[in-house]
């Protein structure tokens, strides 16, 4: 049966780019959400946008479900294959088509890796602002599909705020082009709608991205506190002061312990929480703002505050921060990461309740989060080999999500709903709102073949059987955050 469905694809791609053997498909069974796996019927590996368009049209004609995949780092199971469907692997569409330093825009293919954009722009003094923690391997196509974030969203926004134009093939086979090099749009904002569609509208092929000039100067402070609440209060004080830091991050005791063990990070002794605040801008502005920031931090009574004295110390602070996730992950056979958002003023309460829920459930939870925008990242540790542990971890994760929504926040700040959080969509939107989104989805994809089973609850469930770290995570290349 499967061979017949795939027949038209064999006319489009040579056998080495249409994988069908089980050992070839195994690598595509899972993404960053390692608790789920599903073997696809085949994996198509196009090398040109024309091939992608032809494959999607072929899927449309055959009513064959497809899942677009970049580097497979989705934490919500966004690129998890669909039973009886194919995976379209886009990594070979990895060309930076144009870099225009004067206008500060880059035109890139969908499979270009996030940091490669910044690397290409760096000689011209600019960068691509969205910086998800997997940026060294995740693709722009995936960033756009899930509207990825990073540590700098309060000031610079999410991926959506940096996409000026795109070319995409919709699930109907229609090829569209929206926007361009202008930072302004005329008419409805199609790029805005497409960004964050979680692969349910079709496959974006090319993007025009906005680049920003790299800040001239940074001032990074690390402060250790006796309690998580004190660190949270310090965030409120910084925000109330009228400063606009580029990043505000917090790590809890568990995360600190892990970072110390993993990368020998050095933190003030006796602290239960660490706050990192980074200012950036022209040197004159940073010189004035840092005095205020240092005063505010001093007034927040840390055990110790350590301003980075040079670029090396700054990098060391960020190394500890960015390694925290994989470091905690190594302490446990399995973990789930969430990214619910709460109003910033409720961070303290949210963390206290997560602590209570964690104790009640007997499941360890570490917290490393983007405090500046209220974006939590509870890391729920469990052992998938123990009967029922995954289910208990998922139940705890669900309680945390519901708490975020009840506090007026969001189910997801940057990972998307995917498979992982789709069941909770009705906690955030009512039936009419979900219907509206479903109608919109049907407009783009009347057959329901583009990444089915994601975002919306109640559709076919994939297998939930796996345990263990993602191989790249084990190697320390990526972290789930």
């Amino acid at each position: 049966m499967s061979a017949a469905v795939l027949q038209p694809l064999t006319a489009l791609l040579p056998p080495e780019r249409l994988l069908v053997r089980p050992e070839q498909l195994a690598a595509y069974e899972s993404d960053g959400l390692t608790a789920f796996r599903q073997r696809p019927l085949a994996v198509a590996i196009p090398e040109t946008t024309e091939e992608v368009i032809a494959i999607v049209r072929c899927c449309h004609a055959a009513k064959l479900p497809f899942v677009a995949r970049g580097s497979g780092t989705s934490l919500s199971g966004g690129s998890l294959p669909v039973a009886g469907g194919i995976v379209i692997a886009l990594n070979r569409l990895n060309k930076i088509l144009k870099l225009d330093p004067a206008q500060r825009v880059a035109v890139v293919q969908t499979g270009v890796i996030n940091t490669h954009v910044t690397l290409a722009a760096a000689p011209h003094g600019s960068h691509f602002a969205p910086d998800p923690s997997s940026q060294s391997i995740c693709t722009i196509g995936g960033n756009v599909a899930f509207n990825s974030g990073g540590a700098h969203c309060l000031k610079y926004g999410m991926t959506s705020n940096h996409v000026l134009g795109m070319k995409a093939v919709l699930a109907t086979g229609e090829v569209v082009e929206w926007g361009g090099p202008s930072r302004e749009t005329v008419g409805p904002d199609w790029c805005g709608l497409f960004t964050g569609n979680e692969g349910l509208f079709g496959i974006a092929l090319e993007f025009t991205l906005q680049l920003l000039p790299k800040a001239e100067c940074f001032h990074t402070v690390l402060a250790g506190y006796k309690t998580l609440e004190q660190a949270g209060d310090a965030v409120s004080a910084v925000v109330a002061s009228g400063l606009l830091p580029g990043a505000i991050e917090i790590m809890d005791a568990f995360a600190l312990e892990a970072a110390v063990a993993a990368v020998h990070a050095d933190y003030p002794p006796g602290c239960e929480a660490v706050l990192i605040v980074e200012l950036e801008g022209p040197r004159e502005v940073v010189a004035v703002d840092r005095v205020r920031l240092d005063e505010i931090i001093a007034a927040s009574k840390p055990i110790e505050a350590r301003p980075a004295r040079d670029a090396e110390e700054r990098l060391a602070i960020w190394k500890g921060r960015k390694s925290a996730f994989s470091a905690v992950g190594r302490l446990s056979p399995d973990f789930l990461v969430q990214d619910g958002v709460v109003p910033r003023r409720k961070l303290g309460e949210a963390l206290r309740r997560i602590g209570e829920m964690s104790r009640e459930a007997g499941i360890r939870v570490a917290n490393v989060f983007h405090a500046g925008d209220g974006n939590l990242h509870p890391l729920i540790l469990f052992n998938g080999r123990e009967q029922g542990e995954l289910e208990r971890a998922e139940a705890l994760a669900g309680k945390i999500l519901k708490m975020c929504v009840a506090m007026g926040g969001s189910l997801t700040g940057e990972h998307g709903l995917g498979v992982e959080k789709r069941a909770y969509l009705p906690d955030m939107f009512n039936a009419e709102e979900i219907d509206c989104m479903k109608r919109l989805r049907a407009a783009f994809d009347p057959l329901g073949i583009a990444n089915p089973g994601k975002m919306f609850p109640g559709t076919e469930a994939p297998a939930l059987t796996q345990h263990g770290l993602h191989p790249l995570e084990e190697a320390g290349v990526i972290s789930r955050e």
Partner: protein
Amino acid sequence: MNAMLTPANTAELVAAVCSTPRVIAVGAGTKPRLSAVNAVKLSTAKLSGMVEYEPSEFTFTALAGTPVREIAATLAARGQYLPFDPLWVDAGTTLGGTVASGVSGPGRFRFGGLRDFILGMQFMDGAGRLLRLGGKVVKNAAGFDVPKFLVGSLGRFGVLVETTFKVFPQPASRVTLTLDASDPESAVNILTAAANSRWELDALDGLPDGKSIALRLGGPATALESPAREILSRWLGRVLSAEDANTLWLEMRECHWANNAAPLLKVALSSGAVVPFARSVSALSGARLHLSADGNVAFVSLAAAEQAATLHENLRAHGLSGVTLRGDAPLWLGARTHFQISQAAKAALDAEKRFPGLDD
């Protein structure tokens, strides 16, 4: 159709929307061309007021009919502002009208336009359903980003009821400079160099006089003197007094520079397209051009309605597109592409065709 519906609450809004086969929301009428269409007008005037404001969250939610002037004053009292710099604030523009028109002012240069600050919204569709999409917190990736889609959608998919925005702390002080740029080439050279500089400018505009660039710095007062000196050592120009600076930006924000009796358009541009575009506008006798945000947006004031046809051709030739905000000219000018998805999305969001289409 002279009848104007003026609902004052949700129940009245449902009744108003469902009372007529074709309806379009209007705010203060500062951009009248956008709603100059055959439909019953629904005024948002009585759907007004700030619903929530949490300065510590950098967010607020307000009803669509709220004058932006009121919002700006409330924010300013807490040292905050709308970084995308809305236009026609003194003229009474409403929050809903600003969103539906998708226009941003000179301040959009620093942190982005209106679309970059909208977090969520509640709107009423053609069946009278009140739908809230997006979120109320500064970071959210749940569900389709319909709020962004409706920015610039001219009320053709629903009636905006309430919107949530991200705001920022206001810079402690600002300094404005004007630089001499006698022709489009030298203007673009200055715009490009300044936009790529270390200064992180607050605004960077080519003024309608066609011979000067206005450039605004924002930040702590003592931090602005040395960049200002550096800029003036590079280009010929001057620092404006606080009063002159206020007058200048007020003129830009309220479009006082534009000809009131003839069409005013917004064009999406990029600095690479500025020179030929500026030349094509200057070929139209009496037409004026305000280049905003490093040449990413152009506001074009024509001297006569008849010039719209020529402008349309020029835009098309350069692959640019524009929308008429006021005056007697076609709604859309320049290049336009029609994809099937546009029709399908319209049908998905407004099955009743309660609201006019974008081409009506």
